[in-house]
């Protein structure tokens, strides 16, 4: 259980959390950064460059540098266009030499500022071994670096006409080695709009609900694995695919059944129940701010393109499988968000566009920043699985009188269908009986003993009437734990 202990380490930083601050203060401050007038900056890639410059790519193929975001008033930031003519640049990776990898429709490229004037002057082709069919939906996401130093991309399936033919490797994760050679690694992706590396090196991606994707999800990328969408599976007959063929996708089976039928089927780490937790998860980051962003160090933040919100995810590895829970975090962005990165000061930058897929929010595009004010809201911090239930840690000490009542807890479980229909409702629903509640000695957590845990099912936890020691209610009493593996031994905390 080494891995589990590693996961616990992310939870362990609670000690640094400041004392409770009066509730009047918003825990996180949202700022909308001004943009140059008349420009349409539909942000599609977002990274920090040269330490404190914000590097932005837009769906129109431009690259901009924003300076002055972190020194004083971000409203005084300045924008400079430094490249144009890219095709759907949907992701950056800043390299140690300050060159920037950028993914386009047809190639992975490297942007270089040879003359060090702060603007790029060349676009070097790193790899273009895949082809483009000319369908709008042939997006690519990434790149992200794996432990061995290779680069990974995810490719979106096409929807509709491909006037230049139907190329291979749509709906795949592709690895690009140090020689620029392409190696397909994972199949069955749909709309993998976010891809990233965990601090411990494993790669994850988000996928959007739709046909063959019953609910939006976060999954670990594992070589040879199949993620459920048969669109691109024919490519697996190509000799370039080094793994066993994923097999024929069964239609209309429960996800846990699919996992049994398909030996290479990869169950998700987290399902995002539709509309409860956004509709279109995209980019994500792991909190490595050392507490500067708040009490969730080590957890993951995922932005959603439809619901203009940031969601929170905690992960743990159980039985070799990364899984965990998602929680509401911050709604009310100005526009649907697809990209997110950390600023040097531990604030979160969010790149937004509603283009093509209408979103919540008042704007069509934007760049926003979330900074922690130091206030700690009363929230469920981490839900972890136990052989007989869940362990829930909170951000503040509990009122032991209210917390100990099992009737406060409503726990339901459900899963999804693997099928060709667009999305799946929550199926095979059941209520779980909470048998006992035990409060942690530090008053910051509880053990829930639950009857009827089901592997392969989302477990939705809703405490009602729970109060903190100072009498606060939870900001949002919802957590959704995707229980793929049930721990087999009692865990000792």
């Amino acid at each position, binding site marked *: 259980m080494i891995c589990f202990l590693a996961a616990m380490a992310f939870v362990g930083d609670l000690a640094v959390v400041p004392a409770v601050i009066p509730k009047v203060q918003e825990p996180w401050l949202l700022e909308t950064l001004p943009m140059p007038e008349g420009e349409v900056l539909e942000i599609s890639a977002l990274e920090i460059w040269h330490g404190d410059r914000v590097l932005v790519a837009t769906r129109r193929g431009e690259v901009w540098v924003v300076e002055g975001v972190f020194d004083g008033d971000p409203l005084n930031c300045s924008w400079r266009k430094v490249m144009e*003519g890219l095709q759907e640049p949907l992701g950056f990776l800043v390299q140690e030499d300050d060159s920037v990898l950028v993914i386009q429709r047809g190639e992975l490229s*490297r942007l270089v500022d040879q003359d060090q004037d702060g603007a790029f002057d060349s676009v070097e082709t790193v790899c273009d071994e895949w082809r483009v069919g000319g369908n709008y939906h042939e997006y690519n996401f990434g790149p992200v670096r794996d432990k061995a130093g290779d680069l990974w991309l995810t490719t979106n399936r096409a929807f509709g006409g491909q*006037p230049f033919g139907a190329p291979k490797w749509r709906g795949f994760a592709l690895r690009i080695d140090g020689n620029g050679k392409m190696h397909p690694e994972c199949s069955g992706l749909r709309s993998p709009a976010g891809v990233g590396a965990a601090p411990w090196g494993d790669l994850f991606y988000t996928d959007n609900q739709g046909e063959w994707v019953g609910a939006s999800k976060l999954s670990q990328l594992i070589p040879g694995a199949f993620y459920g969408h048969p669109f691109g599976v024919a490519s697996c007959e190509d000799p370039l695919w080094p793994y066993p063929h994923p097999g024929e996708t069964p239609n209309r089976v429960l996800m846990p059944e699919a996992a049994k039928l398909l030996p290479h089927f990869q169950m998700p780490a987290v399902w995002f129940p539709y509309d409860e937790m956004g509709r279109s998860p995209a980019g994500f980051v792991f909190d490595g701010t050392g507490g500067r962003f708040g009490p969730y160090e080590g957890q993951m933040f995922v932005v959603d393109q439809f619901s203009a919100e940031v969601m929170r995810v905690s992960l743990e590895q159980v039985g070799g499988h990364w899984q965990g829970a998602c929680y509401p975090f911050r709604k009310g962005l100005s526009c649907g968000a697809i990209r997110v990165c950390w600023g040097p000061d531990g604030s979160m930058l969010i790149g937004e566009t509603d283009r093509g897929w209408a979103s919540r929010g008042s704007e069509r595009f934007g760049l926003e920043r979330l900074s922690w004010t130091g206030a700690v809201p009363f929230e469920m911090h981490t839900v972890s699985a136990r052989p007989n239930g869940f362990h829930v840690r909170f951000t503040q000490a509990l009122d032991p009188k209210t917390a100990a009542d099992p009737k406060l807890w409503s726990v339901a479980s459900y899963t999804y269908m693997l099928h060709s229909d667009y999305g799946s409702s929550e199926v095979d629903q059941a209520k779980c009986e909470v048998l006992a509640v035990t409060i942690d000695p530090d008053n910051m957590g509880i053990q829930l003993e639950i009857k009827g845990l089901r592997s392969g099912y989302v477990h939705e936890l809703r405490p009602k009437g729970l109060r903190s020691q100072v009498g606060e209610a939870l900001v949002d009493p919802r957590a959704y734990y995707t229980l793929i593996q049930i721990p087999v031994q009692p865990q000792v905390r």
Partner: protein
Amino acid sequence: MGWKILKGSVACGLMLAGVTAQAQSPSGFLPGEELLVQSACISCHEVSPALQQRLQPATAPDLAKVGARLSPSWMEKFLDDPRRLRPHGNMPNMLEVLPPEERSQARLELASFLSSLGGPFPQESHGTSFGVIESGRQLFHSVGCVACHRPFEDFSDLELSLEDAEAARAADPEENREVEDPLALAGLLAGTLAPRNLALPEFAPMTSVAPLADFLLDPHAVRPSGLMPNMGLSRSDAEDIAVYLLRGQLDQAPVSAPGLASHSFKGSFMNTQDLSELRGGTKGVASHVTVGELTGGDNFGLRLTGSIAIPTAGEWTLHLRSDDGSLLRIDGREVIRSWGVHGPISKKESLELSQGKHLIEVHFFEMSGGEMLKLEWEGPGVSRAEVPPSAFSHQGFGLRPPTAQAPDPELVVRGSERFARLGCAACHTTGTVLDEMPPSGQGVGPPMANLAGSAVAGCLSGDGERNPRWSFDADQNDALQEFLDGFGSLQAELDSAQRLARSMTRLGCVHCHRRSERGGVHPWDRDYFQAREGADLGDEGRLPPQLDGVGGKLQLDALHGVLTRGERVRPYMTTRMPQYGEQNVGWMAEAFAALDPDLPTSQESFEDHLALGVQLLGTEEGLGCIQCHDFGGTPSLGIRAVDLATIGDRLKPGWFEALLRDPGQVNMNTRMAELFVDGKSLAPNVLGGDPMAQIRAVWQALSLGNAMPPPPGLITPDSAFELRPLDRIVTCGVFMRDMSPRTLVVGFPEMVHYAFDMQNSRLGRIWQGRFFNARGTWEGRAGSLEMPPGSRVIDMPPGMVLARLDSPGDSWPTAVGAEAGFHVLGRQQVLGEAPVFRYGMEGVTVEETLTPVLRKGRRGLSRHWTVVAENAAAAKNLVLRPIGGAQMSALAQGLWRVTLGGHELDLSFGEGFGRPPVSSVSGELRWPIVMRPLPEDPERFGATLSLELVW
């Protein structure tokens, strides 16, 4: 100052006299000649072939299908006295040659025969409504019919409903109105003709809706000589006019019919206020307020009109629910407006309504996706519910054609014989064997040359026993006699001016257009020439243009376009340029061009200021042309003057120059703004404010036609996506049609542009003018296959430019990109500067860049390659092929020409092309690349090459 109905009948008498009073002055023809031509005398009186062209009359109507058009009883009446039923017709009374007692039988026989041609005459009633009559009434009085035909109503009466107008006229009898002489009008411009006022026959006993509409749609099918022109009507418009003209066939009192009259229209109505202005469309009846049978369609509009019966007086709330837009009018007042593109939304309004019928109008449009339309009511004693069909009604009735019976076959045969005997076939074709018989019969007279001094004996004698009766009056008789007396000395050939003058008079052109101080719209008719709403152009926006110098104004093809192809550039005019047929007026284009001199253009040397010309058209530091002129179908910012994109193809440059220098000089009535007052331009910061330089720059821009970049300031759905390389190079990555999904389009301020296939490292397309609009790539989910919007688009021939060949004449590889052994290395690109594309093949790296060139007023691109080989082996056998698969011809040393996509592309070779080319088996020219050791690294080899493409 409306045209008075009774004046019409007086002027009608004047018109007959008009032949003698007015015909002489314009063309020098004796009035008798005009009358002789008009009366088709040479059909029966032979003339020499040389004179035939001069005296050729209008062809008489083709009777091949007359049985389906005209009622037999009407034809009988007509034959009895043609001039009585059609005073302006040229048909003589042919029965005069028969004994009186035989005439009645002859009429019956002839009518029977004619009825058999294409008959039977249809007997079905035509269902219609007051709305249709009203539409026809407005069309008749607005599209230009009244330029030749007597209007039925005062213009001011057209604002009233037909019923009200008729009532008003009944209350104010015409007798009380003063009769004036149209040519004695104070202030009348010299040379203006009296209104033509050709009286229309009474149609009700004559024909029915379908054949009359057919005739209006294609009058030349029956009357090939074009005297009755084609007015460019839609079928629906033609039917409306026919119904209006035949409203006398109303066979019963108007009936209240259930449901609402519906008119549906195709098109996008998102940006219109409502559908009130739309005419025609598909007509039908809707049982209630519903999308009905149009459900499932996209891009249509629906107008429902009629009455709604309110059961009880009181306050009523009406709920209108629609997807997309709709509006509701009650008794002419807008009650609910829910216009715009949206999903099903309801709007409601409450109003006091009296018991009984109220006029209702619902307008609706659908853009795409789902659609619905529903009207609900709630009021005294009625809870909210959809308004039931029983509440709706509209005015409807039928038009019943004149009764006809199948002709007696025996009478048909006898009629046919009589038709031949009378010589009717001398003028009329029937689609029968009669057409092949030579002119003969009782009506056919002696040769024309023999008629001098013979008046007492022939047609002019009034002796009906021997001759068709023409009903010429004494003046006309004299005029004809005078002409015939001088017939022997008649000159056969007419010159262009004479021909034009005669045709413009005969066809009625002069009743709309003024030329050589003659003609133009008579003041009495001017009100009927209206501009569409919002076209604030004064008389220029409603009256047909004057034609002085038109041959020097319009390019020949534009003249043909307006004369024979129905091309209209003045959408703001309700009147339409009638079409008389290629065979009748096609020659006029050349005649105008020959008669009218071209205006001189300034002779200064060519300077290329295309981009500035585009700027001058716009509102940002420009002359602001788009303030008033439409641009490529996009409405102007203000009034809707002629579309700028049509001007380069229509006007001659000299005339354009003169117009801009001084608009009043070339066209006295224009509202075109003076742009250069006292030699000072309204745009002082462009080209130093030099008027002539600006005019030339604007003309350069206009010459691009639809390929012109949209001028700055123009607002279109696309304009937010327009890429304008004004002061720097602009690039954009796109899917390019028939090329590559990884294409970089590169636009230069010099207005020459290219598309580079980045996947296959090859130049794919080059073009000039407008650079690119990125809407298809940047809006919504996008992903459009793009094409350049500019002009002179050339697709480069397939294949790579570079290859390694054992022998330079070997067959060239057809593969491109990776399949041809190339790999993409990327590009150097500094924002705003020309990209340098980098690609390679084994052991070889290539850098390619393109830059604009201007050569003697032509634009082009300079291509430049730097080739580096890693070693001596890799440097071998490299061959460059500038243009694959095409035959090049040498123009001069180092200068070659090739035709690609209909454009002449000149290639001028520079560095690296010093040696003579090698010709392949297929005749392509190729240049082996001479690779030399690099000075900095002698192990490696390199070459630079450059050439220019100018087109």
